[in-house]
């Protein structure tokens, strides 16, 4: 059983999507570690280390995602989980933007995948299964 850490980063309190992701991932047989809203990079990384997780799925809805996610990959590396799968989704930047651009920026920051606003989580589950060799 693969373990995924999920949570909402930064000063962000949008809880609805997080609860749905939790439910859907469990339905698909994942071991879900949900650290909830208002979580820091450290919270994500600590949870991942403690549970020996295979992936981290970061949600950011409120628009500060770009600032909150800086150096996330580097922190993972420092903590010895540099190879963990790192996904991000939600409304990750401020305003309505061409998503291709946004995706590029987040991939450059070391995220394996970045998802546009309103993504149905089922799509991401397929990617996850692929990336984890399921």
């Amino acid at each position, binding site marked *: 059983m693969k373990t995924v850490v999920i949570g909402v980063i930064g000063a962000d309190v949008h809880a609805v999507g997080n609860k749905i992701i939790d439910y859907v991932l469990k339905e698909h047989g994942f071991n879900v570690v949900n650290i909830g809203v208002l979580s820091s990079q450290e919270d994500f990384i600590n949870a991942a280390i403690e549970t020996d997780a295979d992936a981290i799925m970061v949600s950011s809805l409120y628009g500060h995602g770009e600032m909150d996610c800086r150096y996330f990959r580097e922190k993972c590396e420092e903590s010895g989980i540099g190879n963990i799968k790192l996904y991000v989704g939600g409304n990750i930047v*401020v305003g309505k933007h061409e998503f291709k651009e946004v995706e590029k920026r987040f991939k450059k920051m070391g995220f394996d995948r970045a998802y546009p*606003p*309103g993504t149905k989580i089922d799509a991401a589950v397929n990617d996850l299964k692929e990336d984890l060799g399921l």
Partner: protein
Amino acid sequence: MIKNEKMALEDFLKIRKEVLNTWHTGKHAGLDLDTAVAFLKSIPDEKNFAKKLKKAKALGITMIQPRAGVATLDQHIELMQFLEKEGKADFLPATIDSYTRHNRYQNAEDGLKESEQQKRSLLNGFPAVNHGVDGCRKVFDSVNVPLQARHGTPDARLISEIIHAAGWTSNEGGGISYNIPYAKSISLEDTLKYWQYCDRLVGYYEEQGIEINREPFGPLTGTLVPPSISNTVAIVEALLAATQGVKNITVGYGQGGNMVQDVAALRALEKQTNHYLKLFGFEDIFVTTVFHQWMGGFPTDEAEATALIAYASTVASLGKATKMITKTTHESFGIPTKEANAEGLRTSKFITKLMQDQVMTESEELRIEIAQIEEEVDELMHAIVRVGKGDLAQGIIHAFKQGLIDIPFAPSEMNKGLILPARDIEGKIRILEFGQLAFSDDVKMFHQEKLALRAKKQHRELSIQMVIDDIYAVSSGKLVGDKEEVPNEN
């Protein structure tokens, strides 16, 4: 132990000193209370939120207000002027950024600096504390309509001080409504205290003859909140505010989706707020209602989003809300451009003007929904008073702890989070799982029957999947979620 009692002036002033010390802009001379009073007395009636609301209420019309706020002062002023001119907004906001909401003024300062450099807003709102009294007053001077801070700040004491001293005559929020949906581990004891302070500040100004409006945040998590639950929170916060001397209160409600239930909720809200205020001995409070356009996930297609905005405006008009908070076609993506924001306002205003002489007709269905909401609110209110042993503040803390009142999908650990709402076959929001909610068996039976009927009609089981489908429903163009796609009629 917190009690629902009016703060003594000396206690208030003592805390005030500390509050004003939490960030350097708190030391501004405009925050001297006498100076602030003199300034607030000088502002014209049409820029006073409380007075303009009274006027709207007398005319029986629905006024409109957007959400809007960007990091830098110049851009924020440009935005406000644009929304006044091109959107014909009757009231203007400043939506405050999320760092400020969590009192992380240094983060906000960094974001503000970077926004100034990059000439685009990296913050999701206006950092009013960082801009201080001078900045906020500049905003005030640059527009011709009343201003309000809209935020979601558990501890909004400093921001409230600054905006009122700058001439902003309304403040949104409350000890419950700006905690449970907006925080994770802040205690209700704390937020109730913080908001007693914010209300006491307004009470102080009222004592000096200055009218200031207060608005509990109605929609809470914005997601399938049963009307009786949000109405109860609004009423309780109105009572808490009145206790501190607030006189002009706007209670809010977020669109649920079914027209009749929404109008019923608005009608019950206004009636019961007035009722409970009188019951608790407050005779001279001026109550108005605000309707929030759909607060859940929005459709991505702009033509559809505009449809939803217009539909919400129709309901607000039929329900005769005095104010409506508008959305935009960018809602599902991110903070809107000023153009998109003004369009949302124009769409909204077109409807409220077109419909200003129409009301929802009296009907049996409407009567039943109003009565249902009223009964549920009464049960929740009684539970709160009971567990508080007569004290409302204690009642709230205990009621939440025991789950007697419970808000769906809330992030806060102070909230039990056991209830699950779902729609009945007409799209009215009912309750599937009650947790510890303080409802009588009769009321529970009512909900169960309604949902059983839907399950039967949709040939599906009552389950959490139904709830999830309902959460997605509106954004995908339905009201009642259906696992099996409705057979495509094409």
